[in-house]
């Protein structure tokens, strides 16, 4: 075989292997991007999942659902990869059993929630906006409080998570964040 032919077949084989790996990679990515996967560990199933089942994004008038990855995993490829790499840290803590009881979970909850608040604040609640677009909101059909707050809030550069904390889960002990909205104690 001539040198030319060898390099051509290497190229073709390489290409085929590449396609297979790429496919497998994206396939795994999609597999881990389902609610089923998210609640396959009891840390999620017994805590955030049961709470979420009580909320508008699980059961509502129109039957449209938002699942865990809709809110927690970016859709754009590059952001998604970055989030997935961070998730390897979560595997490490799974192995350590950092939040393997309700008590441990509650103790860690403020910290975990803050990560999400910071992430959403920084990206202007991108995942919420994948489904909810404030330019398309029909104010006349929204409630009076919603209109007041949306008009003022968006004008002041506020984002969804500034006002809609706890849409999908119970909130952590909020004493440090808003001492006026907790039972008197501490």
């Amino acid at each position, binding site marked *: 075989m001539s040198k030319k032919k060898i390099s051509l077949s290497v190229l073709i084989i390489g290409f085929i292997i590449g396609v297979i790996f790429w496919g497998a990679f994206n396939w795994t990515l999609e597999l881990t991007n389902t609610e089923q996967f998210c609640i396959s560990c009891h840390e999620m199933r017994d805590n955030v999942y049961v709470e979420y089942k*009580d*909320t*508008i994004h699980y059961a509502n008038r129109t039957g449209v659902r938002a699942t865990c990855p809709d809110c927690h995993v970016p859709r754009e490829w590059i952001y998604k990869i970055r989030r997935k790499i961070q998730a390897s840290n979560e595997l490490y803590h799974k192995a350590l059993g950092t939040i393997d009881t309700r008590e441990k979970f509650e103790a860690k909850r403020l910290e975990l929630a803050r990560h999400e608040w910071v992430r959403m604040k920084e990206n202007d609640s991108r995942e919420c906006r994948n489904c909810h677009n404030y330019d398309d909101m029909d104010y006349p059909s929204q*409630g*009076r*409080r*919603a209109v*007041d*707050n949306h008009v003022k809030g968006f004008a002041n550069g506020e984002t969804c998570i500034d006002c809609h904390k*706890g849409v999908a889960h*119970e*909130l*952590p*002990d*909020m004493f440090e964040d*808003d*001492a*006026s*909205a*907790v*039972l*008197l104690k501490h």
Partner: protein
Amino acid sequence: MKKIFLMSMVITAGMFGLNPYAFAEHVQSLRGDLSLEENSVAPTLKQYQKDEAPIARDYLQQPPLIPHKIDGYRVTIKHNKCLSCHSWTNYKARGATKISQTHFESRDGAIMSNVAPRRYFCSQCHVPQVKAKELIANDFEPVEAMRH
């Protein structure tokens, strides 16, 4: 003598049907005139009213009715969703009515530095509204000074 008089009173009362059982057939329960074994027709589900302006109060000390939806608002030991709008810290930003001073008073009359435990569970006293016919006709009128 006194005893005999009392006895005869009781007997006459019994004869004229003043015992509670004699009235039973005239009492109508809210579930309708049905025997215990029968089921009443389930009322249609009512929908909570959309957000409105505050609803006028009818008497002094009335806990104001909630003029907005409260679906999904949680009150847990860790966080009170109502206070995230109605506390003194947050009411201005959210355009809500602030809780009144009585909400800071403990059972023993002490003034606390935050909402008192007995006022923490808001929907014990404050209720949202549905449009529905009253189950029992009511002709309550506010006093002159509170009419609106």
